[in-house]
Structures are given as C-alpha cells and as structure tokens.
C-alpha cells in the first residue's frame, strides 16, 4: 500500500512539505526564527532571560519558560477572534513542556524567558511549526541548551502512516478517517511531546512514533543549518 498511496498534494508518505527555516527575522528580539511546513508559517521571538514580574511568580531555583502561541485572526479561512482561547492556552502549555527539557534554566534563577509564537498562515501542523521556530529562536537568543527540539505531525489516513499532515489530510474522509499525532523529539531522540486525536491501534501507534523520530532527525538538520547561516552572517 505505502508506495502507491496517493496524498492530496502528491507527496511520498514520508515526505514533509517544503520546509523553510530562517533565523534572526525580528531585530528587536533577543532571538527569533521562522519555520514553515509548506503553507503553514510560524514565527517565534524570544525575549529574555529578563526579570520576572510579578515577583511572587519568580522561581529561585531556576528560570521560567513562558510560551504564548497565537494564531493571527486572518491565518485561517474563518476569521479567529483575536486574543487567546482554550485551544491556544493548551498549545502554549504543550509548547513549554516540549521545549523545557533541553533548556538549562537553572542558570537564570528568578528570571523569565518569554517565547511569543505567531501563526501567520495555517494549513495544519501549526503547533509543530511553532515548536520548531521557538526552539531555533531560543538557540538564537543564546539560552544555554542541551540540544534542539524538533517537531512533526504524523498522520494516519485510513490505514496509511504519513509525515507532516496538511489541512486536506486532516479532514481525510475515506476508510478509517484521519488520526493526527503531533510529536516532538530532542536532538538525542527523546520524546518531549505527543498528542493524538483519532483512532489507531497500539501497533500502528508504535510505527508512528518511530516514523516521527526519523522525520525529526531530518528537521533537526534543517534547523541546525539555519542557525549556522546566521552565525556566518555575523
């Protein structure tokens, strides 16, 4: 099945959309990056480490990572009411959890590192693009990190596992329908994030995890190259 499986945009099952990664896009920020999976475009800016206000929220043991995921009102076909909602609150938290394991925030007690993620244009996999952009922006800001974080969504369309789910695939109607599994890995292959919506067997879920790990290794190379480019520019 796998080789002949037809994806709506003609991609191979393990092929991501065209990835564009760029570091240093927002001069004001301490670190910034853009990451795109095809039409899904995320930008992230890092401010900090800086003083954490209000003071009672400070953590004297280590610095705090605070992420804010936000979709621009015009990033999807039906306008989104600006400001946060429950979905964006959850994705913000998931993003913090996905990134925290690689950050060495014990060097910055009482401080906060703010990461602002904006989805400029959405065609599915926005949280993964956001996490990828944020990880690059954190590295660009010079926050000490044990490694990178790379994120990808694995889909199961009917029975077929595919890499980097697009909007058309998210709404897959044939057979068993769509299952969406966004995952994030550290550059040494540990999982920092997984979510799942749909219907999948234990065996296929294991296959999906292994596939995501492979895909994230490739995304990591792209992130690394983008970071090297900006170093060379300076």
């Amino acid at each position, binding site marked *: 099945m796998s080789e002949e499986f037809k994806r709506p945009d003609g991609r191979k099952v393990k092929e991501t959309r065209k990835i564009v990664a760029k570091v240093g896009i927002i001069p004001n920020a301490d670190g910034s990056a853009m990451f795109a999976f095809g039409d899904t475009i995320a930008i992230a800016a890092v401010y900090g480490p800086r003083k954490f206000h209000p003071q009672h929220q400070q953590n004297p043991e280590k610095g705090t990572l605070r992420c804010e995921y936000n979709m621009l009102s015009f990033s999807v076909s039906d306008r989104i009411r600006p400001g946060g909602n*429950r*979905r964006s*609150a*959850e994705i*913000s*938290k*998931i993003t*913090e*959890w996905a990134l*925290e*394991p690689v950050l060495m925030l014990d060097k910055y007690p009482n401080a906060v590192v703010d990461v602002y993620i904006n989805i400029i244009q959405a065609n599915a996999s926005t949280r993964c693009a956001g996490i990828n952009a944020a990880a690059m922006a954190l590295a660009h800001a010079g926050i000490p990190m044990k490694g990178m974080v790379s994120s990808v969504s694995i889909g199961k369309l009917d029975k077929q596992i595919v890499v980097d789910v697009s909007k058309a695939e998210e709404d897959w109607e044939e057979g068993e329908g769509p299952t969406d*599994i966004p995952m994030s890995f*550290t550059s040494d*292959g*540990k*999982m*920092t*994030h*997984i*979510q*799942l*919506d*749909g*219907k*999948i*067997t*234990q*065996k296929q*879920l*294991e296959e999906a*995890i*292994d596939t995501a*790990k492979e895909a994230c290794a490739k995304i990591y190379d792209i992130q690394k190259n983008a970071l090297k480019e900006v170093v060379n520019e300076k």
Partner: protein
Amino acid sequence: MAEGIRINEDRIYEYLEKGKRFDERALNDLREIVIETGFSKNAEGSARVKIGKTEVIVGIKIATATPYPDNPKDGNLMVTAELTPLSSSRFESGPPKINAIELGRVIDRGIRESKFIKTEDLCIKEGEKVWEVYIDIYSLNDDGNLMDAAGIGAIAALMNARLPKYDLENDKMISGELSDTHLPLAKELPLSITVYKIGKHLLADPNREEEDVCRSRVTIAGYGDRIFSMQKGGGETFSVEEMKKAIELSIKVREKVFSSIKKYL
C-alpha cells in the same frame, strides 16, 4: 505536576526502586474506585467518582442549540472542568487556569474522538436545531490523579443522562422535565488512563504526594487495542521505549479500571 511539598521525594524514589509505594500498592495498582450516578435532580445526568480520597462530580446538561456550520447534522459537545478552591488549598477562584483548561480539553478529546456519543443521533432539524451536551467537571477533593477521575466521571454521567422532554407541536424543549430517552451512546466505553513517570518508573493513579514529585505524564484514551486520543504533559522527556511501555501499561490499567467500575454503570 511537580509542585507543592516534595519533602518525601527521595524516599518515594527509594521505594519505587524496589517496586513499592507508601500505601503498599504495586506500580500499576489503582486505589479503590467508587461511583455514584444520578445524584443530581436538575442535571440531565450526573456522577460522583472517588478514587481513593480524590473525588470529582460531573454533571450533564442538555439543551437545544444551533449546530456548528461545519457539522450541520451533529449534536454539539462541550466539556469544561473547574478545579474548585474548595477541593484543594492550591486552587484559587477566578477564570479557569491552564490546568483546568487542559483537563477539560483532554477529557473532551477522548470522548469526541472515540465517537462515544453518537452525535448524528442528536440532530433535531438539520442545520437549525440539535441537542447540545455539556459535560461539566468539578473537583471536590484533589488527592492526585484528577485526570482519570474526571474521565471516569464523564463516562458514568453520560451513561446516566436522559434527554429533556421535547414538545413537538411547538417545536421546543420542555425545560426541567426529563424524557425516558437515554443519550445515544456507543457500547464501547472510551476510558482515559494516565501513566505517570517518576524518575524512570511508570506508575498508575498517583496520590497527591506522588503526583507532586512526578514531572511528566501521558494520558491515553482508548478501548481494546484502539487508541483515540493522547496527550503528554509535563516538562520531562520520555524515551521511545518508555513511551511504548506507557502505552502498553495504559491498556492494562484500563482493563483493570473497566472491570472495577462496570458494576456501577
């Protein structure tokens, strides 16, 4: 997660190293689960779930509403959770914070993705009127693992619910009167089970003290070997092997929970 008093952290690790817990449970053992359904007169369905000392109440409200434009033939589902200040000194009043939002959304997805509620049977008039089902979860006492208590409570309350009476002549719902019709539900119960990671150990159903030293967890909703939704929480990694073990463990624990709660449902 990883908040509150962690004075016993080292001792908890020492015990886990030997496969033991303070309350003498095995790592995959749950505390006793007690369910009471139908305690509320005004809710369309209700359930009260205790896992050990952890307790939640779940109420179902059902009303007519306009369907969403992208699903004109389906009833609506809304899940909210509130971590009440009465249930723990660490919860405060005010708009829901992220832990309550996440709890509601994780339970929502387990139920929605499993298609436990046959929303297509909740249509009154296509594109105009459908039944809207609200699942509202409130914590009464937080002694750890509110997540699983909430998941069990939502399922139990849904099974307890009946639709309001409907006046066909005037085409409107009769508020405050219940019909004999239960909600259209699937036979398979999609239970959400959370596997908690403490150090390199995976365990089920932590009490408050254990959950306080836990830095990562993964919640998995499923039935049989089918998995419908998943969410990892917490800022610590799982290796791929650990994740696969956690999935395996959640399936085993789910079977256990199922056999201990079926007498109540």
